[in-house]
């Protein structure tokens, strides 16, 4: 998605483990939301070696609804721009 000066924004949903991230991604895929399991940048993963699920800016609210419907909790959410800069999203 584009924002302001052509910045592509993605959201990272932090998960406690790889397995949990995979479960999260599966719920989202089932809801028709593209989701990608990856490691977040070091500045996000304070405890090191964390996992997250990346979704597009447009689908974040759908993703949170889908997770809520599936009784799947989630960790913090970060916004990631195309320069790799991240900031926590306060819901």
């Amino acid at each position: 998605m584009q924002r302001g000066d052509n910045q592509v924004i993605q959201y990272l949903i932090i998960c406690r483990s790889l397995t949990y991230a995979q479960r999260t991604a599966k719920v989202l895929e089932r809801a028709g939301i593209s989701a990608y399991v990856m490691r977040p940048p070091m500045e996000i993963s304070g405890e090191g070696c964390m996992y997250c699920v990346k979704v597009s800016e447009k689908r974040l609210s759908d993703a949170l609804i889908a997770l809520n419907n599936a009784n799947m909790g989630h960790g913090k959410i970060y916004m990631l721009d195309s320069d790799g800069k991240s900031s926590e999203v306060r819901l």
Partner: protein
Amino acid sequence: MIYLDNAATTLQKPAAVGNAVRRAIYGLASPGRGGHSFAKKGAETAFKTREAIGELFNVKEPDNIVFCMNATHALNIAIKALVKAGDRVVISGYEHNSVYRPLVAMGAEIAVAASPLFRPYQCIEAFNDAMTWDTSLVVVNQISNVFGYILPVDEIAELCKARGIPFIVDASQSAGHIDIDMVRLGAAFVAMSGHKGLYGPQGTGILIAGELDHLSIKTLMEGGSGSNSRGKTMPDFLPDRLEAGTHNMPGIAGLLEGVRFIKEKGQRKIFEHETRLVTYAGRLLAEIPGVSVYISDRPGCQSGVLSFLIDDMLCEVAAEELSKRGIAVRAGLHCAPLAHETAGTIETGTIRASFSAFNTRDEVRAFAAAVRDIIEKKKGRKEYQNKYNSINNAH
């Protein structure tokens, strides 16, 4: 060779298992240990395997499925998570050393709820009597690896739940054979092998954790988990807490195909096939003079495993003779001396034949014919010896 040692390891595997293992060796890297495509493929396979296992055993959360080296590994984690020195632990009279020895090592006060073979009602009674107010844990084998006796685990589970006692089920011989529903069962842990009834490769085992505080589970091993790496202790969530070190990806990939095979073929159908073979083998063996067979006289009490003895012949010798005739069975105590003490075979051990989805009635006939041949040859040698002795004595 006719392979009848499936209670130890199912050696005949679906072709897909071997193919998956081969592909995994060259194509699957460690899940969670890298962002490259090989690690991602490994992660996908591990997750699919957890999901497949979850479906088979009705596990709500795949996170609660822990990959282990074998059932012994899984049972050690489970027992050591719940037992402290001096705790009273009630077990069945048919437990394997993989339950008994960890309990001894932990200094538990072991109470054996002993009951006769193939008598489930007496088994329930024995558990009911043994589960005193100070019982901390119950551990029960779902199927005896020696006799194929199916213990009344559902009823024992109900006794435990009614008294608020956590319980562990050893499903080494039942996984892939009979229905195990984690939600209905309500066990603290269910432990199983991957290489027996699930048709996975050796070196695979599974621990399924129930609803309990995962942080309270003591770790047997500590090390890399691919998560919370800056923390000095193992993560407080499953499966990472109990999966230290590199995963056995060839084993897990093979196990996935084994589980798929069971689903495709139908667990119930496989079980019915095996029990038909056991019934047939029991009938043929019972017709041979000099053979004692441990076969249930009640339907639903025995899986595809049976033990037998040959009069005046050590079971190891009989197994050796069967091996010479192309039949692979196991003889001895089968790492379950408690089961032999309960059944009264501790001094002799038994010869065990155990069947899988791949065995046939023709193989059972050949097996029984081999047993008959061994006995007749032995009888012939004895008659010759007697005749020789009488001639010698006459001179």
